[in-house]
């Protein structure tokens, strides 16, 4: 091991003293921080919210202090049908309804994962990963699809937000405490070779308490309801005796099976034209498994554009925390010019960012437009779920370089894929560990 010596420190200090404009740079960084000191322009022509292709969408939603972006982005994508056909432009689904069943299903998945790994020690990497976050807000597209296919959808008015759905920290802490305690109960039963019936009965008992906790925090999910509304032309409508499933069928008409998650993960351990899954992350056990088709980077852009041209929004997973200015709604590659400020080359290519876990799929949003100049997309219109006080009434602008670097997956119609790509969908997916980047 080589330690830092005082001679070295002296050399570093001398180098620093000779660095051009060191004192001025230093003052800027110490007073305002590296981001404000190095930010490029955000209000230039290149980031103007004007798009050659711009879908007609409603006002943005607000996930508040919760990690439900993936759910919001999915509901934003599917609501376009109801907006057009039924004249309900600003219609919102109940995110709370889906969140209720999401958390219940995640508790069930956690129990199943704990039972399946009960023969491994507690500090095994797989077991430790399950225990580190038994039941959180986060999710992905297939998870939303599975939930909606199983439980349907309801209008926001039927199951509105509560204190806890808007601010999930307290619930998360209570629920995870309970699930970790239950993990011990289930592992012990399994290790004592309890019968399958005894384990099933215990699991049902534990899950019933989870149901109670969720009912107290999110409210009771409705089973039948009446839907009353005035459309954009002020016409009154009343539709009675709906269930969440019939409401979904009648008003949304969305076929999740027509879509596929396309990622571009260039890690050497992964192949293009290859289908992947992560079995331990399939929230709704035995439904709509997580399925990802890995394709070369240029396909992400081509497919997203083709789908927008066909008039449909595009769900996408990304690292919103990189090169983002929240207030102005700017997503611009190289927004913070740290290289200039520190005179250090911070550039890391996408592969290295993924393998070193620098890259993070931190957010999901929806593309609802693109500016195509001379056949090339120069910027994308992004529908976010952080309320309308950020960006342009809640919409963000992403430039082409940001898309290249920080968009990791898009959800597209299978019919837009080439024949070879469609053929890949018929193959058996490779199962990845829970800690893979694609999860």
């Amino acid at each position, binding site marked *: *091991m*080589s*330690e*830092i010596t005082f001679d*070295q420190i002296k050399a*570093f200090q001398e*180098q*620093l003293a000779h660095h051009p404009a*060191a004192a001025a*740079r*230093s003052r800027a*960084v*110490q007073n*305002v*921080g*590296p981001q404000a000191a190095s930010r490029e322009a955000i209000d230039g022509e290149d980031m103007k919210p004007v798009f050659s292709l711009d879908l007609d969408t409603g006002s943005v939603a607000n996930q508040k202090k919760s990690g439900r972006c993936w759910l919001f982005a999915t509901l934003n994508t599917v609501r376009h049908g109801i907006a057009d056909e039924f004249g309900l432009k600003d219609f919102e689904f109940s995110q709370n309804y889906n969140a209720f069943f999401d958390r219940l*299903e995640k508790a*069930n998945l956690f129990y199943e994962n704990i039972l399946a790994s009960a023969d491994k020690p507690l*500090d095994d990497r797989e077991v*430790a990963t399950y*225990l580190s976050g038994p039941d959180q807000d986060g999710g992905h597209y297939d998870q939303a699809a599975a939930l909606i296919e199983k439980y349907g959808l309801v209008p926001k008015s039927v199951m509105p937000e*509560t*204190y*806890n759905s808007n*601010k999930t920290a307290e619930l998360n*802490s*209570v629920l*995870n405490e*309970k699930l970790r*305690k239950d993990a011990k109960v289930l592992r012990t039963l399994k290790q004592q070779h309890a019968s399958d019936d005894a384990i099933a*009965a215990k699991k*049902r008992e534990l*899950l*019933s*308490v989870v*149901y*109670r*906790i969720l*009912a*107290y*925090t*999110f*409210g*009771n999910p409705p089973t039948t309801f009446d839907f009353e509304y005035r459309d954009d032309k002020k016409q009154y409508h009343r539709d009675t005796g709906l269930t969440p499933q019939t409401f979904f069928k009648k008003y949304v008409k969305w076929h999740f099976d027509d879509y596929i998650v396309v990622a571009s993960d260039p890690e050497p*351990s992964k192949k293009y034209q290859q289908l992947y899954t992560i079995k331990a992350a399939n929230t709704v*056990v*035995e*439904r709509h498994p997580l399925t990802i088709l890995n394709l070369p980077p240029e396909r992400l852009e081509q497919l997203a554009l083709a789908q927008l041209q066909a008039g449909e929004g595009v769900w996408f997973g990304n690292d919103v925390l990189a090169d983002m200015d929240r207030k102005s709604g700017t997503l611009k590659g190289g927004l913070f010019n*740290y290289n200039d*400020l*520190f005179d*250090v080359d*911070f*550039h*890391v290519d996408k592969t*290295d960012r993924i393998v*070193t*876990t*620098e890259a993070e799929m931190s957010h999901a949003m929806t593309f609802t437009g693109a500016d195509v100049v001379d056949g090339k997309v120069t910027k994308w219109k992004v529908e976010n779920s952080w309320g309308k006080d950020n960006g342009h009434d809640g919409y963000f602008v992403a430039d082409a370089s940001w898309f290249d670097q920080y968009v990791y997956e898009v959800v597209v119609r299978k019919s837009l894929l080439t024949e070879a790509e469609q053929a890949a969908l018929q193959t058996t997916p490779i199962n990845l560990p829970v*800690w893979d980047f694609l999860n």
Partner: protein
Amino acid sequence: MSAEITSSDLDQFKQDLQATPGATALQKAVMNNGINTTAENTDSKVAMTPTFSIELETGAVANQKQSGRCWMFAALNTMRHGIQAQFKIKDFELSQNYTNFWDKFEKSNYFYENVLKTADQPLDSRKVAFLLATPQQDGGQWDMLSALIEKYGIVPKSVMPETYNSNKSNELNGLLNLKLRKDAVKLRKLVADKASDADIEAAKQKMLAEDYRILAYALGNPPTKFDFEYRDDDKNYHIDRELTPQTFFKKYVGWNLDDYQSIINAPTADKPYNHLYTVEMLGNVVGGREVRHLNLDIDTFKALAIKQLKAGESVWFGSDVGQSSDRQLGILDTNIYKKDDLFNTDFTMTKAERLDYGESLMTHAMVLTGVDIVDGKPTKWKVENSWGDKVGEKGYFVASDDWFDQFVYQVVISKKYLPTELQDVIKNEYAKPTVLAPWDPMGALASR
């Protein structure tokens, strides 16, 4: 039930819910106000009245703001208590930014060394993945601060004040971790290409020079010489010239850091009591002091904290502050939220189960500055926090004795209070402690 949740399961859950006493009333309260507010227990507020039979004389609390430097603040607080008393400078603070600078610089080097050590393991191996997940962070341990002070000394806050980046560390951490991960790729490649030791060392030196520059821009230049000027509590003026951080430490703090020992209470099966432990890949100064924890049962552990407080010395301690706590009121009490009553279910876990199942770990360091002893038994503890004076009682918190049992994991004790047989354990095992895995909960304070 089957693996899948069926509709008959859902019907059963609904029936169970309807059969729960008071369900509809409780549901409304929780939906409108959240869990904590609904379950908060007034009895706890009464029991946690801030009166203590043993209470040290301390000054105004410090504020770590939006950074994870609690361990540093807590340690510097224990040291400033002596300065405040001996030199009569009541609200005196030591520079947390000075130790922060050297900590981040040393952690960068420590990271490079660990990357080189694990370069033969694949990127997705658990150890390499752990290392890359957080190349460096704000967190740390008592022994890590000792290592910094032994090498770099300490300075008054006025000599190296806080900056934007020390108060709000997320931008700097994001940037430095990006840089360190990039460097990790380079170093691993050099090893894979069988580069000579000299070439690897030269590459590392270049990286460290850049890290030094980044830190100097963000946190300022650490002083090497300075004058210390102050008025004491009796309004007398003093000036002490030509001090170095090392001479300042010797003169104004004067501790022999070898006299202090980290004691833990980790009652899990993998850690027998009365032995010394360290945590792999946990540290900062390569070649400096390493982490050593002596694991003791809770009664001995607690008696030592009381002994030190009775002797008039404050106690650095590590805990899981997020559990059963009301930040605004400054209460840490296992009785503060009656969750079991609210949800009609038993949430109880033992301390060992919580550690084994990842439900609890060390998240925060603070200082014990008092204890209330009634009929020979401790009932509550006075806690000096570093979250400013707007929370708790002017920044001081009250912890119940049961909370102490359940969620306090570490105290730092002057060795002179330890019985001879424990002093012998430290001597005998210091060179070869039991090594815990990098992700052990006893290392958590320094890895997040």
